[in-house]
């Protein structure tokens, strides 16, 4: 995706050069030529500055699949006596007509907080530590990609806790999950309950990723 953006940026620069060269030509006095050149430049600039959602969908889908495969390798247990209701935000669970840009910011926040949760001590579970580390590695790689992509979004259009309530609700939800683990002292059943909740997260992430297809 970075290479495509670089090539698009180079194409936009080339159009800029053409426009400057044409401006010193006596033939560029014609107004309709200026309008056409401006239209070309604006078109290329808009392509250069926008997010490539097709590529984002591809990488996100691949990351979702890889993370789920690793989570699936960790032992599951019901632990019905330790269940808790964490109140996942309904607006994320049922996104409806959510915009692609909003979905991208939400996915980034979810990946970041899942990473924070699983960084805690899970040795009581008996899980394979290498699988947990690999799971964290996959999460970190995708977080980096998402941060780079979303950095291109103008600052006044970025979604943060201060300007987007959904982000605030999400962060509260993950706070409840972390507090649950702390209260249960990172017991095995507590981790089993959290594992089930994170698997539920990935089901929602798959649905959010589908938004990029629209």
């Amino acid at each position, binding site marked *: 995706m970075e290479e495509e953006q670089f090539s698009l940026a180079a194409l936009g620069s080339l159009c800029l050069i053409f426009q400057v060269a044409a401006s010193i030509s006596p*033939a560029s006095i014609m107004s309709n*030529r200026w309008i056409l050149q401006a239209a070309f430049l604006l078109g290329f600039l808009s392509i250069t500055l926008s997010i490539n959602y097709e590529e984002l969908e591809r990488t996100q889908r691949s990351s979702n699949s890889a993370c789920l495969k690793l989570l699936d390798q960790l032992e599951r247990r019901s632990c019905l006596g330790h269940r808790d209701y964490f109140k996942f935000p309904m607006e994320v669970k049922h996104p409806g007509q959510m915009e692609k840009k909003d979905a991208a910011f939400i996915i980034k926040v979810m990946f970041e907080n899942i990473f924070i949760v699983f960084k805690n001590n899970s040795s009581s579970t008996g899980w394979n530590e290498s699988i947990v580390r690999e799971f964290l590695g996959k999460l970190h790689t995708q977080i980096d990609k998402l941060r780079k992509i979303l950095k291109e979004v103008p600052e006044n259009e970025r979604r943060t806790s201060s300007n987007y309530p959904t982000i605030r609700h999400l962060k509260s939800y993950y706070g409840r999950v972390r507090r649950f683990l702390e209260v249960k002292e990172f017991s095995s059943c507590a981790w089993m309950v959290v594992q089930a909740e994170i698997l539920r997260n990935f089901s929602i992430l798959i649905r959010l990723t589908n938004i990029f297809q629209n």
Partner: protein
Amino acid sequence: MLSNRAFSAVSFRNLCLGEYPKESCTMSLTLRNFRLVLSLELKNKSLPSTHFTFWSTMMSKQEEPKVLENCRNITESSCDVTDKWNDTHESYVPIVVIYRGDSMRSYCEDSYVSSIDIRPEPPEFEIVGFMDHINVTVKFPPVTPKIYGESIWEVLGSKSFVIEEQTGKNVKVHNPKMNNIAGNFTYVLRDLLPKTNYCVSVYFEARAMEDAIKSPFKCTLLPPGQEAGFSESTTVGIITVCFITMGVISVIIMLKRIGYICLKNSFPNSLNFRNVLYWIFPEVPPSEAIDKLEIIPTNKKKKVWNYDYGDESDSDEEEVPKASATGYTTHGLMGRLPHPASDSSANPQEAQLEEDSAAEESDEAGARAGTVAELPTEAEVGSGLRPSEDPSGPYERKETGVQDSFPRDDSSPVNGPGDKVIFNVNLNSVFLRALHDDPEEASEVLSLAEDTVHLDEAPHRTESGLLMAGGDSTQLPQPGISSQVLWTEDESSERTDSSDSDADLGDGYIMR
């Protein structure tokens, strides 16, 4: 009396509290004929089971398990939960009570299952082979099936359906986008080779590729194609290439017209560094063009000087144009009447001088008229403009040019012998029009109009001036005349600006 719900809860607690042993089993969630089916597989198969009862609960809420009514005391080890589980993102915990006869009961509890654990079974399909393509018809229900209360394409993803095309060891995967597909769906596998065996399989993508349930392959041998001529795909390809080429050419033409590309830079040869030969062999300036001028006089009085002292009579006749009755020539500046015999006898010296002045004026006029005026219409300038040549040469040629320039006027002279016709020529009023298109020469011609020759009131002055120039009568003022003959634009401007050489007589007349 306890309610059914309470009874179910109490019953489940009785089971879990040790009355019934727990068995090891495996639960799987599949999509079979577009229905969500929960299946049980017991590890201990030694003892046959008679019937089963399915219970379930959720991980997100602290709720007691509930019996699935449509799966109470059933003989099958699978339960259709399509209408029971309504939350796509929920993790459900299934519990199965196993009955072996009337006396033995056990239960099985696996871990939780969710939508991401679904293993969809492939639908039914048919294939029909043609020469270069295969039609794959997949059988879907007439109404879009739903699971968890939503369309299967929403739950599984619109690109979850896969058609696999295999020939030999080559495998090609097709991923058609399925948005609310209902009823039979036909997909065409194109660009296939005739007389080749192709096998097709269909399946839904699962979370892990190994979990995908693929349909058995269905194979067909494509019929042979046409031996000669272009196939349909080749024709379409050629047409497509033509359209693309036309599109590219039109874009290039448009860009060229709006100035994006191929801007023309017409540098002069001296700045054209690629033309090395030009630096070595610079261009020879073109030979001077010959201007053809038409002199349109408005007020002419001319005194003709004849500088040809050696040949008076004949040359005078030849050179001096004849004047009209009014004293003005109709064509040029020459107004001297040709009376060589009487003039010379009566006032030989004066006549001679006048003739000389007339000739001189004719010479000057010829020179000024860019630089030779040829009357009645045209003059050959080239004969008078050879600055690089011997000064005497141009004078001679000037005479020749003058001789050629001034045609003989057939009008009879007005004055009698001894008469002299004096012309005042205000060259400011003399409009010289160059018939040649060269602007430089035109400006050169026009500059001549700045000079005037005053020959009227004080002819003697003119004569004296000319005499001064020709004071040495035997000495022809060749340099001066030649300079006048060789008068270029620059020289004319210099003469105009110079106050030493010209005496301003007022009214635009300048004595030289």
